[in-house]
């Protein structure tokens, strides 16, 4: 079955390529002491990447078409406000997701 073999080969190749990207820094700096610059990067990367992931989640929003990303920005505002107020992760996440699902499923901003 060449098709099955080809599919398995493709999956293997993608899996190896993905793992390569993940293991790369550990191979480079696994045995020797990383350069001093890296330890500063190490501390600064997580907060930067987390905020970039938030921005990445908004990558497909159509800012110039109705509803102009308002459901997303509005819900993010609610999630952030709720979290700053209560500091309860589960509450902020679930209330926000429920709200967003209601907003898009009932098309609340259709008047825009």
């Amino acid at each position, binding site marked *: 079955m060449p098709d099955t073999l080809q599919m398995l080969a493709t999956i293997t190749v993608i899996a190896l*390529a*993905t793992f390569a990207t*993940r293991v*790369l820094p550990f191979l480079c*700096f696994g045995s020797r002491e990383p350069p001093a610059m890296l330890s500063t990067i190490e501390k600064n990367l997580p907060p930067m990447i*987390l*905020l970039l992931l*938030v921005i990445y989640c908004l990558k497909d929003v159509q800012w110039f078409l109705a509803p102009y990303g308002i459901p997303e920005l509005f819900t993010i505002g609610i999630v*952030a406000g709720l979290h700053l107020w209560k500091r309860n992760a589960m509450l902020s996440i679930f209330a926000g*997701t429920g709200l967003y699902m209601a907003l898009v499923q009932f098309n609340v901003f259709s008047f825009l």
Partner: protein
Amino acid sequence: MTEKEVKRYETREGDRDLFLSALKTTVPVFLGYIPLGMAFGFLMDGAGYHWIYAFLMSLLIYAGAGQFLAVALLAAGAGLPEFVIATLLLNLRHAFYGLSLLDKFSDIGKVKPYLIFALTDETYALLTTAEVPAGGSKARFYFYISALDHFYWVAGSVLGAGLGSLLNLNLEGMAFVLTALFVVLTIEQYFNSSIRFPFVAAVGAGAASLILFSPENMLLISIILGTLILIAREKFGQRDTQLNEGIRQVKGIGQAHATAQPVQDSSQEEN
């Protein structure tokens, strides 16, 4: 119970607590990975592939965007080199995740290869933010978080490929749970660290890549851009401190980690 038995009982108890704690930490990822995994499974099913392929891809590749891209490339009849290049470029951001986990993973033991394999956006976000419960083993806690997330993704894919066409659930908007998770984790990072500049770098790099580049390339480019901004600030913003650090290093005083500390402090004063 003998002393040995008590000890074993206690570790088992502690282990269960650690697992439950990891379970609680990963609930948002569960809610995000099930619909996203289902979307992938559904896509594979729609493209005419047996569910076993959706299962294998989620188990062995385990990269959300990468797998969606793979379906598109399969449909386009791409060759193996195209798969390799596209996958490397799309997932290169993972290299930056590892870069900031070198220290955290340095004493992690035999689960390290698996933790590296299972490093997705969401797992990275959890590992860099979640506190290991007091008295618990870091290696076990990280392993539980990684394995649970992996399991959710595989379960979602199989569910989508097997039942996707039968179920008629309206999950529209449910993937927003991951956006909300990242928002909450960003706020937690903001409170947990006294450094503010990474957030400025993120807004600058994120906005620039969102405007200038296509959505698919935006994340990798913004991470590279942001890292360059961090390095530039480090290099040129505190040249004097760096110079002093350099002299101290040449004299052999202090390790790489110790020398990084004063640089960190000076950046805090500025903010």
